């Protein structure tokens, strides 16, 4: 069975909030040139390396944006085939920061999150969860359910984990039917936060980001609306990412599209609808640009990631998370390149 993969989505999301009809390579090149300190000379020297850097954001204590770029001699079709096989990525190809990556079937069932293994710390967090004071991001109904569960040794860990996994399945099922209205309102802290609001905040985190691919962003916000023209794969997946502090579960909605635009040859967007730590919202975009689009020879894949935190992060923790996510973006760019090469070997 083919195992190309998916990470495109997970991996490659370029946060291009781009501008209307003319979105494309020009806006990306501008983003690289004006907002990150990635220069054309950096690209010219890039070779087979990857490069990821932070973009300036309005409030550094609450937001983070990363842009990454890699040169890859691939085709949009190879990227698409890799993305369509997200559930088949060999473990050996996954970077260390990606502990798990699983497709969510439609409809989801009780086995969907079976591979989700909670750490002892997370099990303890579930067990001790209280309204407005929980070490995992949860809605009030789940906090109440967990609080009411009997604490029986030695089965408590599995009981709490099973309840959590079941709630995730219910949330995903409801999201497929009702979109953002079904997403959770986090009540782990005194300031309640709706996951859809967190996503919106993440999208707006770049101070002067161009409005990229508006039809894609609109679709993800208005889901279940009809998909935009040229949409190819529309799916959900979950992953566990390790940024160097706490492994973080994310549940995501991904869309890949073959735009009717020669500048932008392939694009995928990821909307994180749930993260159990750190993120109030997360939006990622990945794009394969036309040849020489960035003003230097070659074809480049650009990945943009926007994150909004669920509260203010102190400088120390933000530094840890930021470094971890920059490294993660670089890892995912490497993975995208490897998967694309695997899906359609050069020559």
């Amino acid at each position, binding site marked *: 069975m083919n195992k190309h993969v998916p990470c495109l989505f997970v991996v490659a999301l370029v946060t291009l909030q781009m501008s209307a009809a003319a979105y494309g390579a020009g806006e990306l090149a501008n983003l690289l040139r004006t907002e990150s300190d990635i220069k054309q000379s950096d690209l010219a020297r890039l070779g087979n390396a990857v490069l990821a850097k932070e973009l300036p954001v309005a409030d550094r204590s609450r937001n983070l944006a990363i842009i990454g770029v890699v040169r890859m001699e691939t085709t949009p079709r190879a990227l698409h085939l890799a993305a369509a096989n997200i559930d088949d990525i060999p473990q050996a190809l996954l970077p260390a920061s990606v502990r798990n990556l699983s497709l969510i079937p439609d409809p989801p069932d009780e086995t969907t999150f079976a591979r989700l293994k909670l750490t002892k710390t997370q099990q303890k967090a579930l067990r001790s969860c209280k309204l407005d004071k929980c070490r995992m991001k949860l809605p009030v109904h789940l906090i109440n359910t967990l609080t009411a569960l009997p604490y029986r040794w030695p089965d408590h860990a599995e009981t709490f984990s099973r309840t959590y996994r079941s709630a995730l399945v219910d949330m995903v099922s409801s999201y497929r039917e009702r979109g953002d209205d079904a997403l959770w309102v986090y009540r782990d802290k005194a300031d309640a936060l709706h996951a859809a609001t967190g996503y919106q905040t993440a999208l707006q985190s770049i101070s002067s980001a161009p409005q990229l691919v508006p039809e894609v962003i609109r679709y993800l916000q208005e889901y279940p609306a009809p998909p935009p023209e040229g949409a*190819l794969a*529309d799916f959900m997946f979950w992953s566990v990412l390790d940024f160097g502090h706490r492994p973080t579960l994310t549940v995501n909605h991904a869309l890949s599209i073959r735009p009717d635009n020669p500048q932008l040859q392939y694009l995928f967007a990821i909307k994180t609808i749930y993260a159990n730590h750190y993120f109030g919202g997360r939006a990622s975009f990945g794009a394969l640009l036309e040849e020489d689009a960035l003003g230097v020879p070659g074809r480049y894949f650009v990945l943009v990631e926007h994150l909004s935190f669920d509260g203010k992060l102190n400088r120390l923790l933000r530094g840890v998370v930021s470094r971890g996510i920059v490294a993660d973006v670089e890892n995912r760019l490497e993975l995208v390149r490897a998967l694309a090469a695997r899906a359609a070997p050069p020559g």
Partner: protein
Amino acid sequence: MYAGQHGDYLWELVDGVLVISSPRAGVIKRQAANNRFNNAEQATWFAQGQIDMHSDELLAALDALKKDV
């Protein structure tokens, strides 16, 4: 209407429905395709992606059909 072959499967996109079949076993799966396509390339990639993403399900259905024969 768009049609093609991907791996062991044939596919057709007709009136918003993707039909995946096997040359030997016949129709294996039908699913709604609300996507709007501007050209054959987009339709082809969509169909190929659906076949890849549902490969396990298609294989199981194919096995079941073969046993029935």
